[in-house]
């Protein structure tokens, strides 16, 4: 049973991140997942200091608040003329530094282990269950990530057209009267909700990877946004299933294996994708050259 819960959690994280990640890859903001997963640290510590408990609800609240603040600050600096990659870098490193200092100032004698809070381990998911009316209704992580998935599916399918236009041609979207900034914040809100909901249970690196690797793989395989989202979800779920068994065989970290498998699939797509793969493009080029040299009348 625990195998089922772990794989289900992995697949849910992969689906949530896969859907949102497609838009991030298209809008060239792929590093934002990494940024959010680091910068929520002060939020978690402050929530812990205020509430005094390690109840994950408060921590989640603190993390979500910091996620939104991060996104807001990045946008603020970007608008005041800093390149977007640099503004991501400045904001998340500063917040992370604040978090580390808060941890070492206030929690020296309290057990707030960074590894546990910030980098959850997916292997412990099945034991952290919730009870409703005395009945065990499954691991908390499944419910949390499942809700985030539901939310992103609903919001993205309702505003699909708007999100699509904002990703490909924000100027046209603005000209047509779509509130581009609002949709930007909506997307970023979804990203931070998915990131926060996921990393607490499965570890930050799995979230960062799943936000980028499967969507990029899908980006190499298709030209349509709708298919890209579907491919990315399928690739993400596939790599979490295979990754689990790889981890089982190697006796290694589950999250790490899932990402490694996704990386392997990306490498395959990079080399062998029929439209954008390196090898096929080289082959086509060579055939083109061959065709032109043999076909040209004078040479």
């Amino acid at each position, binding site marked *: 049973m625990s195998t089922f819960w772990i794989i289900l959690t992995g697949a849910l994280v992969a689906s949530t991140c896969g859907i949102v990640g497609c838009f991030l*890859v298209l809008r*060239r*903001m*792929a*590093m934002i*997942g*990494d940024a959010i997963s*680091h910068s929520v640290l002060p939020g978690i510590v402050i929530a812990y200091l205020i509430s005094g408990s390690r109840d994950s609800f408060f921590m989640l609240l603190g993390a979500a608040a910091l996620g939104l603040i991060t996104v807001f600050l990045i946008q603020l*600096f970007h608008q*005041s*003329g*800093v*390149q977007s*990659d*640099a*503004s*991501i*870098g*400045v904001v998340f*490193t*500063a917040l*992370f*530094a*604040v978090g*580390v*200092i808060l941890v*070492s*100032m206030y929690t020296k004698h309290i057990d707030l282990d960074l590894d546990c809070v910030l980098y959850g381990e997916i292997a412990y998911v099945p034991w952290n269950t919730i009870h409703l009316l005395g009945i065990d209704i499954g691991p908390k992580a499944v419910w949390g990530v499942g809700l985030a998935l539901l939310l992103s599916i609903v919001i993205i399918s309702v505003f699909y057209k708007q999100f699509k236009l904002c990703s490909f041609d924000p100027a046209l979207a603005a000209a047509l009267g779509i509130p581009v900034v609002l949709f930007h914040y909506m997307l970023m809100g979804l990203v931070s909700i998915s990131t926060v909901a996921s990393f607490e249970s499965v570890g930050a*690196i*799995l979230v*960062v*990877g799943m*936000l*980028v*690797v499967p*969507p*990029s793989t899908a*980006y*190499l395989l298709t030209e349509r946004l709708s298919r890209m989202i579907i491919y990315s979800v399928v690739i993400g779920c596939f790599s979490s299933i295979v990754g689990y068994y790889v*981890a089982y065989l*190697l*006796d*290694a*970290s589950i*999250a*790490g*294996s*899932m*990402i*490694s498998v*996704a*990386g392997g699939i*990306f490498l395959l797509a*990079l080399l062998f994708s029929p439209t*954008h793969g*390196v090898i096929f*493009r080289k082959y086509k080029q060579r055939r083109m050259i061959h065709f032109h040299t043999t076909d040209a009348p004078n040479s």
Partner: protein
Amino acid sequence: MFDWLTVFRDPNVQWILLGCLLLGLSSGVIGSFAYLRKQSLMGDALSHAALPGVCIAFMLSGSKSIFFFLIGAAAAGIVATFGIGFITRNTRIKQDAALAIVLSVFFGLGIVMLTQIQHSGNGNQSGLDKFLFGQAATMMLSDVMIMAVISILLIGICALLFKEFKLLSFDPGFARGIGYPVAILEQFIMFLIVIAVVAGIQAVGVVLMAALLITPAVSARYWTEKLGLMVVLSGLFGALSALVGTLFSATGNNLPTGPLIVLVATTLFIFSVIVAPRRGVLSKLLMRASVRSNVRREQNRLQVTKSEEAI
């Protein structure tokens, strides 16, 4: 006041101070090229990508020698830069996504190896991951020497190849047109970033090394429009934040050095955002106010002349 002076007299603190200072200086210099080439997050990606290299170095050598770790980290960093370059050159995937892919996949692989090492029952492995999270207080004389050599090398190379790097940062197409080996130079800049990151990981840790590459450069960009001045300023900002951060950490409140350095750098950045001439928030506000009052005066004068004409 006396406290501050005794801190300087402690030889241990002197070494750490010197090491961090050099680190801040050289990463500030190389970071400004990274910023202009829109590769600010390269430092973050490379410092995560070092993990599998460190693990492989441990597996091969079986010892926890810093030297092997540095070589492993540098090798993994170079492989990572090749990966990033290959993906961006050969596909339509943009640089940010390539960075994030390499970061997460390498780190994932590193975690797999790390857990593998831990589970294989090798008693010697403890503290392998601590290497990546760094603590300046553990720096020794030999580390500072290595750091000094590396920083002088980095700054020297940047000074010698300043013209090439400048052209590459602003107009790579033109650089290719006049016959510079652009691909080699690009790879070389990334190689320099790898070296800076690897040298810094031990002192300030993975995440905060990224900050040392980005924040001073962004702050320096606010003050000037000239690349030469920007590089110098960025180096100075880096060195200053390292100095002040280390001093704060050394005066006995027992806070970790790396985050303090980053916070000082961030304070400098916010200061720059607010008061920098021309680009800063204050000067923009002043400019807007003066333009507005000018326009208003013009309008008043026009109205006065109109009403005079009417009379």
